[in-house]
């Protein structure tokens, strides 16, 4: 067997950012358009500030946004969009209402007209809303059987206490109580262009696309509302919260650690420390509990950002019989990264991954649209990627070690485990203090 050597990497060309053309309309709606002609399509993202909206009504509103206008039924809306190869859907996060869609590039004007009708002339017809309500209730009932959902629900409560972020999914009974009139009033009150951002990316002329958006959405006006949430509270570490799920063949291990927003000087070093710990496959934690020990399939960690706070989230589904050992290894790896500086080659590998995947994320229309829209909702533009790339490229071993020491110490973690308590309580209690849910 002859030994072959790994080919060298050709250094990346300078980061090339696409041009964002931007205009803020008199209504307060900001429109950002980016030309990328790779395929003859256009991607649409609209984010509307929605903090403090009552969760059950807001959730059903997002589910019912396309149920009808003064002149179109839900079927008409869907059929008219299909004619231009289009589709639109809506979702909700704790900060915003989010509309996502795409169409053949030539269909942009028509898609914007339909979007405008939905925003300015919503009907929320009774029968359609009731149908959506029942569907949502069934969907929530299914979610209540999903271990990942149950574990996240318990973790958010434990992390955020009385802050609105603590509850991000409504109860089925709360949804059953929502009436179409409640959706109409919430829409009138909160589906407003003030502070909203529309992003258009694709095979388009940006100026003309913004003109089309202005023409279609110029009549979308509404009261501005300043609904900034208070800052999320600092995490309060405490006993491990054990949530019983009798008969569960796996345990859902979840931890939350503090983090900083994207614009913080510590963010790039923390992102790198997170990668080294567990944020990608070639991390210490994944190599340990999956590739060495076989305890789990897809362990992962990530930094989640909301407008009022950021957190580093740790998640793994582990076999019930190795729940204790899995927590042991997790505490060990967190303790190791918080206490000892990583090796230089670990940092370089994580750095190249962060810089490389940033380019991969911008290589499609959909990727660009998602990135531009997400950044814009935090008041940033794609130009920020240049600064962030430089911060990733320049982060030193000392800075990464300092970020890990500050944010990733296991003593700072909020921990939840969902699983078969009868089988996992004792092994977990051997390692830490436990509080039953």
């Amino acid at each position, binding site marked *: *067997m002859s030994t072959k050597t790994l080919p060298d990497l050709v250094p990346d060309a300078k980061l090339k950012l696409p041009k964002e053309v931007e205009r803020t309309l008199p209504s307060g709606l900001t429109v950002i358009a980016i030309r990328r002609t790779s395929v003859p399509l256009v991607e649409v993202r609209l984010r509307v500030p929605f903090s403090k909206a009552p969760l059950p009504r807001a959730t059903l509103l997002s589910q019912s946004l396309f149920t009808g206008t003064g002149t179109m039924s839900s079927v008409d809306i869907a059929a008219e969009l299909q004619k231009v190869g289009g589709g639109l859907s809506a979702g909700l996060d704790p900060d915003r209402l989010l509309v996502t869609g795409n169409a053949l590039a030539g269909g942009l004007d028509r898609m914007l007209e339909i979007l405008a009708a939905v925003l300015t002339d919503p009907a929320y017809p009774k029968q359609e809303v009731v149908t959506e309500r029942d569907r949502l209730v069934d969907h929530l009932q299914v979610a209540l059987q999903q*271990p990942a959902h149950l574990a996240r629900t318990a973790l958010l409560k434990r992390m955020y206490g009385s802050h609105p972020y603590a509850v991000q999914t409504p109860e089925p009974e709360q949804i059953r109580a929502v009436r179409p009139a409640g959706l109409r009033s919430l829409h009138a009150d909160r589906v407003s262009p003030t502070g909203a951002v529309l992003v258009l990316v694709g095979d388009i002329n940006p100026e003309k696309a913004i003109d089309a958006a202005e023409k279609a959405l110029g009549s979308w006006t509404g009261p501005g509302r300043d609904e900034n949430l208070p800052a999320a509270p600092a995490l309060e570490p405490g006993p491990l919260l054990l949530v019983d799920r009798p008969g569960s063949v796996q345990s859902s291990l979840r931890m939350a650690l503090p983090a900083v927003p994207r614009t913080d000087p510590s963010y790039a070093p923390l992102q790198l420390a997170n990668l080294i710990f567990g944020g990608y496959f070639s991390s210490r934690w994944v190599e340990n509990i999956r590739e060495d020990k076989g305890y789990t399939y897809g362990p992962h960690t990530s930094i989640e950002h909301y407008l009022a706070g950021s957190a580093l989230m740790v998640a793994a589904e582990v076999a019930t019989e190795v729940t204790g050992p899995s927590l042991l290894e997790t505490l060990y790896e967190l303790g190791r990264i918080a206490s000892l500086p990583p090796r230089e080659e670990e940092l370089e590998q994580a750095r190249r991954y962060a810089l490389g995947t940033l380019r991969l994320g911008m290589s499609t229309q959909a990727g660009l649209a998602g990135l531009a829209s997400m950044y814009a909702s935090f008041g940033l533009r794609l130009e920020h990627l240049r600064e962030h790339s430089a911060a990733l490229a320049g982060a030193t071993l000392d800075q990464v070690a300092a970020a890990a020491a500050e944010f990733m110490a296991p003593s700072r973690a909020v921990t939840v485990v969902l699983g078969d308590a009868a089988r996992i309580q004792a092994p977990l209690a051997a390692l830490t203090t436990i509080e039953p849910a």
Partner: protein
Amino acid sequence: MARSRKIPATKYPVERFTLENGLRVVLTPDRSAPVVGVAVVYDVGIRSEPEGRTGFAHLFEHLMFQGSENLEKLAHFRHVQGAGGTFNGSTHLDYTDYFEVLPAGALERALFLEADRMRGPRLTEENLLNQIDVVKEEIRVNVLNRPYGGFPWLKLPPVMFETFPNAHDGYGSFGDLESATVDDAKAFFDRYYAAGNATLAVAGDFDVAQATAMIQRHFGDVPARPAPKLPDFDEPGLTAERRDTYTDRLAPIGGVASAWRVPDPIGDFADYLPFVVLAEVLTDGEASRLVERLVQRDRSVTSIGGYIGFMGDEFGVRNPTALLLQAHMPPGGDSEKVLRTVDEELDRLVHDGLTPGELERTQARIATHLLRDTDAVLGRALPMAVLELQRGNPGLLNDLPKLIGEVTEAQIVTAAATLRPDQRATVEVLPGAAA
């Protein structure tokens, strides 16, 4: 009726050649973003795994990441991610794929990594036992510990098919997985992972001459081994309706899924394509026939979807395969009634045809989905590698939107007329959890 809107197409260039060892190569350059996608696809999947070794094709896919001739365990992952890239692999009924997406400057590294494991993975007892554990956790996450696990992709084939290759559980039983040996893995590699049984596709930002030289350099000395004869997995279609029911202890509401055999996706492509469009006419969005009827009007289901191939890979599956419909029902839902209504809607389609504009708008939306997928380098590299492997025609990817747009109403009606109750296999999942 005249088309109201022309369906656009892509013109990705396609270069094809075959190395002396039999490896078929597809290059599709596009320099609009500084990234490349590399895909290697082997002509072996779930249908080829031996009896008593259910789940083996997938387990073997995991073993292909455990080190190779010049690479230690963990090295593959580190070299891809340390180049700023991402990777994965997946096991299908008829093929197994391995792929990377990377910044353009890492192309040669990815080719090196793929060539190295094509020469031979490091098959050790330790790695095998480790990956059996990992695969069991994967099955627990995706099947055993969640509601509707394996519904319907693992639950419907045993109802519809008679023969082991088509009917068995492709994730595998724990017993079979635990029985797997290093010798099994060696034999599987020797038999199926020959260069002549594989295709390589590269998409994205590269120079064709340079990439060709790199491919020669790294894959040229992979030894030639005979490729196995392509098996024929065909079996007779149904002559009477088949039905099965099971209870899912984690499911709070019921569900039902039905499947009908469709023409050979490769041998009878012209007759097959209308079924691809039909599935969308029936279930794509609120304006589709079955969503409008069952969800909006009757409210007898809360969701319904339709697609071809048990893994949803309509242009990556061979004969025999099926068109599937799957629905979830509200509490107290009646699967008999749902199936009767589906039959009624199919009859209506067969007798009354489509409504004006119904076909054109469905075709336009399918075109958007197809074009959107090809915008990603991997959305070109992977399907082109599979199309080369199964059809010798990677350029079909460029033609699909147009071909979909040429399907006629008469073809849709003919296709719908074959979806008869006595040709149907159905599985119903009963709720075993309190809602």
